[in-house]
């Protein structure tokens, strides 16, 4: 029995280090190749030795698919392809291909230059890795080989994020990556057609959250920022350079404009301007409103938001600073945080999910005394706010996507085990499908039973369809044909055609039975009596009395003859071919019972 096997190497009951192996109809696909923000040791990358101990990855994997540019989905890619060694194709969308190397380089710099790590991938490796990338467009069917095809769907979440359908023959798996089911200020909502995959692998970051209306959240956010600025405090918003940053920038930009506020807004890294360029050039990936109006006004040209300089952090007076990275685990956002943490007038707003082990996660879980490097203890007096602006689907959104795609089963990744458990129950109840949530290294096996496509000759099909389209459930009609298997091609043709094609003659098998009847009348009269008898019983059949005196039922021939010895007995010769076996046999039995007395 064929089956689909799924093994998460990362993101199994966890957020971070997304990397999922899928085997489908003999093809092996790796979905995402991420790093874990919560670890700095071996555990930050997936354990690729699981895939194959001795062989080359290229021989084992048919392709790698990257869903979007976030590092927890692509951060291990140069390590995987250049240091472990993989030369096969890597698929991602155009915006992902454009932005991914920049984030990888950024990540490399922090790891090597700032933390002084050795044995990390180099800039050249990032370049070499990106050479293996094949860019895909939305809805394009990419033929990886003759059998394996993949197709990208819009996922929202960040610029260029995509969900992928992986398909071999009639079997398919959909992997969502990270997605968002509600359109926001700059991106559209994820969408997929009713593709009925065997398995839907979905993220479940917000498996238990049903987020309140977005507008409330935004109002709340603006209110908090506004209040802090009004009382002269500083607002730190840790973000990743691309993604939520643009969303919140658009939000603050329009608010500043409307309220005519003067406090400066800064964006920390040099990446920003570049990042905004990407948004302008890939504007077809943003939401409809932005696309429609971009000629008149490009939403990614900000008037109020300016580049940040390190020295500004010590400036007196209120300000709002967007700084990277988003989980306060390193870099500029952490530096500014350390500077401002001591003042209760200030505020830090965490707009997204924080992985365990990061400073962001610690302060969100209520820790107010943080141990920093060099045994320093940092006391956090500033206000800490959490607002979920991450563009992940919430529980409602996940259910919505399951409803859209109508999978035969669901597998949860990229979430916390406890929350997954809740969602799993909900999905199983509502959709009556199996739902799995394997841990890292654990394999889920799904049996499948693919149907077999064959070519049916049009003549046979049309003959059959002409008999009536709707099958009668009580008495279904049977289609008869011959399946010809030749050079692994399958064709279903009528038996006659099969004989003809193979140059074979039909062998006719015929039966003739003698049935004796007591009847002293003439043969012709006997035949007439047989005719009316059969006619009265076989109402659905074609019964005919031919001029030569014989009677036919369909193609069965009944002839009456005199008995050579007994004039009071007539012999009925019933003759039929093998194809009419049932009816012929039935007729002889029927006639043997004799004819009803003729009305005198």
């Amino acid at each position: 029995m064929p089956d689909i096997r799924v093994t998460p190497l990362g993101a199994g009951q966890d957020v971070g280090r997304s990397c999922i192996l899928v085997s489908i109809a003999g093809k092996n696909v790796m979905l995402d190749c991420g790093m874990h923000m919560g670890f700095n040791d071996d555990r930050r990358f997936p354990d690729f030795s699981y895939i194959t101990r001795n062989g080359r990855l290229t021989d084992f994997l048919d392709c790698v698919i990257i869903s979007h540019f976030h590092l927890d989905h692509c951060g291990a890619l140069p390590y995987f392809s250049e240091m472990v060694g993989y030369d096969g194709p890597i698929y991602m969308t155009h915006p992902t291909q454009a932005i991914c190397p920049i984030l990888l380089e950024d990540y490399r710099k922090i790891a090597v230059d700032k933390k002084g790590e050795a044995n990390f991938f180099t800039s050249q490796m990032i370049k070499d890795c990106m050479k293996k990338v094949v860019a895909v467009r939305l809805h394009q069917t990419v033929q990886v080989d003759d059998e394996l095809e993949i197709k990208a769907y819009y996922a929202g979440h960040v610029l260029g994020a995509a969900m992928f359908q992986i398909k071999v023959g009639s079997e398919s798996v959909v992997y969502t990556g990270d997605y968002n089911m509600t359109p926001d200020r700059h991106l559209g909502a994820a969408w997929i057609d009713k593709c009925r995959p065997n398995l839907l692998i979905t993220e479940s970051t917000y498996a238990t959250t049903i987020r309140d209306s977005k507008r409330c959240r935004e109002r709340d956010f603006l209110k908090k920022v506004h209040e802090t600025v009004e009382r002269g405090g500083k607002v730190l918003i840790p973000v990743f350079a691309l993604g939520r940053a643009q969303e919140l920038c658009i939000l603050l930009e329009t608010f500043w404009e409307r309220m005519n506020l003067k406090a400066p807004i800064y964006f920390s890294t040099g990446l920003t301007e570049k990042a905004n360029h990407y948004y302008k050039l890939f504007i077809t990936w943003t939401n409809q409103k932005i696309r429609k109006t971009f000629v008149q006004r490009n939403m990614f040209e900000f008037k109020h938001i300016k580049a940040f300089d390190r020295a500004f952090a010590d400036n007196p007076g209120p300000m709002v600073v967007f700084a990277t990275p988003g989980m306060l685990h390193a870099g500029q956002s952490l530096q500014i945080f350390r500077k401002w943490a001591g003042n209760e007038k200030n505020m830090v707003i965490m707009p997204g999910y924080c992985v365990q082990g990061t400073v962001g996660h610690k302060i969100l879980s209520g820790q107010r005394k943080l141990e920093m490097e060099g045994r320093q203890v940092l006391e956090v007096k500033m206000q800490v706010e959490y607002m979920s602006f991450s563009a992940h689907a919430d529980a409602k959104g996940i259910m919505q996507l399951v409803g859209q795609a109508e999978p035969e089963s669901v597998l949860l990744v990229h979430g916390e085990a406890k929350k997954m458990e809740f969602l799993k129950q909900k999905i199983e109840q509502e959709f009556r499908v199996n739902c799995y949530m394997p841990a890292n290294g654990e394999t889920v096996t799904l049996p499948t039973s693919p149907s077999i496509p064959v070519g049916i000759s049009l003549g046979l099909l049309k003959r059959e369809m002409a008999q009536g389209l709707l099958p009668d459930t009580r008495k279904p009609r049977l289609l008869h044909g011959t399946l010809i298997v030749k050079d692994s091609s399958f064709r279903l043709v009528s038996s006659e055609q099969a004989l003809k094609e193979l140059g074979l003659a039909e062998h006719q098998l015929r039966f003739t039975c003698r049935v004796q009847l007591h009847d002293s009348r003439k043969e012709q009269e006997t035949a007439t009596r047989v005719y009316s008898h059969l006619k009265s019983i076989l109402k659905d059949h074609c019964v005919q009395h031919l001029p030569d005196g014989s009677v036919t039922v369909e193609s069965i021939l009944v002839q009456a003859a005199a008995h050579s010895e007994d004039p009071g007995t007539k012999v009925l010769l019933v003759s039929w071919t093998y194809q009419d076996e049932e009816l012929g046999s039935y007729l002889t039995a029927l006639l043997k019972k004799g004819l009803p007395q003729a009305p005198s």
Partner: protein
Amino acid sequence: MKLYCLSGHPTLPCNVLKFKSTTVMLDCGLDMTSTLNFLPLPLVQSPRLSNLPGWSLKDGNAFLDKELKECSGHVFVDSVPEFCLPETELIDLSTVDVILISNYHCMMALPYITEHTGFTGMVYATEPTVQIGRLLMEELVNFIERVPKAQSASLWKNKDIQRLLPSPLKDAVEVSTWRRCYTMQEVNSALSKIQLVGYSQKIELFGAVQVTPLSSGYALGSSNWIIQSHYEKVSYVSGSSLLTTHPQPMDQASLKNSDVLILTGLTQIPTANPDGMVGEFCSNLALTVRNGGNVLVPCYPSGVIYDLLECLYQYIDSAGLSNIPFYFISPVANSSLEFSQIFAEWLCHNKQTKVYLPEPPFPHAELIQTNKLKHYPSIHGDFSNDFRQPCVVFTGHPSLRFGDVVHFMELWGKSSLNTVIFTEPDFSYLEALAPYQPLAMKCIYCPIDTRLNFIQVSKLLKEVQPLHVVCPEQYTQPPPAQSHRMDLMIDCQPPAMSYRRAEVLALPFKRRYEKIEIMPELADSLVPMEIKPGISLATVSAVLHTKDNKHVLQPPPRPAPPPSGKKRKRASDDIPDCQVLKPLLSGSIPVEQFVQTLEKHGFSDIKVEDTAKGHIVLLQEAETLIQIEEDSTHIICDNDEMLRVRLRDLVLKFLQKF
């Protein structure tokens, strides 16, 4: 399978393909050459045009002088220009299921089709095609609507009168079906029926047919289409290019193995080399400007203009033209320049790489930034303040019948210092210029048509090997003006089938197979037997289910248990269903072995007689005889069913079932 040909224009095609149960329209091009018969629509009142003399018949009858005007020996209709629509009577257009658009030039008749024929289907096109197509339509509507013309001439269209008119009016076809331009409202409604698609996207039509757009290399988002079922494939090639300009290269490999290849949209100027023309364009432009003259380039607001601007970007400084202003005037100039920068995914590799940096893919962004190129919605407003001469003006419409270009023709036509350079190949430049004669201005003809030429076509056809080629009749003979150039026509084997306007072609292939799915349970029950080396057979008896044009074979149901209970049986309950067919038989029965088998099964007293064609096996005891011949066996017995069935089964052992 049939092809209904609704347009006779080879580069602005409109065909309807009936394939399986679907009706697919391939493009809806609008033939705008009809507008050449009309007087230009000036933006500013033109005394010259309004004082043209009316035309009168040879006998002096002047009843048409309000409708027809004469200019330098040519006669023009003084009316709102009209367009020649695709044929609307050949086929009921409300039965069209989908319209496939291949590029923005081939969709200009869309509003006429979707808004006025009862069409209720879906239109498929790529995003750049729709966005730029919208711009072209917007510009057209704007050009026509901003100069309202009171007069709408119709007298001249009367068949009896048209006969009397001079050429080319006399020979204009289907003038009664010519229509005025649509409105913006109709454009919006038509465009709202478009579903966006991407290259290599497989789109299912009613489960019966799959259509796929492929990159055609001609323009931003331009596509060829594959229309296929599991066993048949039609390729539709329209406006393709193998030159490396800005769009993504043409996908040729996917056209392979077509049963039929419909070929339209080849170059209109097969003798001109586009690269050479661009060079000539630049040098003529520079020459004129250096001599203090102005250059007018009548053009569409998108397409070749991007390439021209790119060439000029590289050429300006070296030619010493840095101080010459370049103006691009169109109601959609700004949108066109902006849109060109956001379709990274539809561009050639070089331009894509620039976007990854991230930089704008087209250098006209820099020309605008450095103020070398300025764009305006029209000559009114800001332009009149900024206007400096000598200068270069890019503006529409290439027919010279409407748009801002009319103004510049009137303004610059009298001076021999100025030059008009024709780059768009859609209109004959001599005809375009006719209503402006006499003209002192220099006229340069540098048509740039990047579409396939005949050498490229024959190479393409050799590579993709379609079984049949269908094309407009113009491609099956040399151009009329160059009748000796046998190389300027399609040369393929078997010869291409040609079509002309209002013809219906029966395409030469017969469908023979259809896909059907065998459910796994049924597949498991099949027992294939090898009949010949490499060929196996299995007889299949199954229930056919058909839904949404998809066919599935399921295992036959288990026979229902005989009804229990004491219900009285009716006689008819026993009657077998004659629809339960037995398989056909094949093979032959070797007599000796057959007799041995009979003996093994307890028959004795067997006698074999030879006949002319075979043998007769007599079972004397049972008064039964079996005639065995090469291709038939006949069992004749008394009514002993048990015996008959035993004999039947023994015979069947020697035969194969089908």
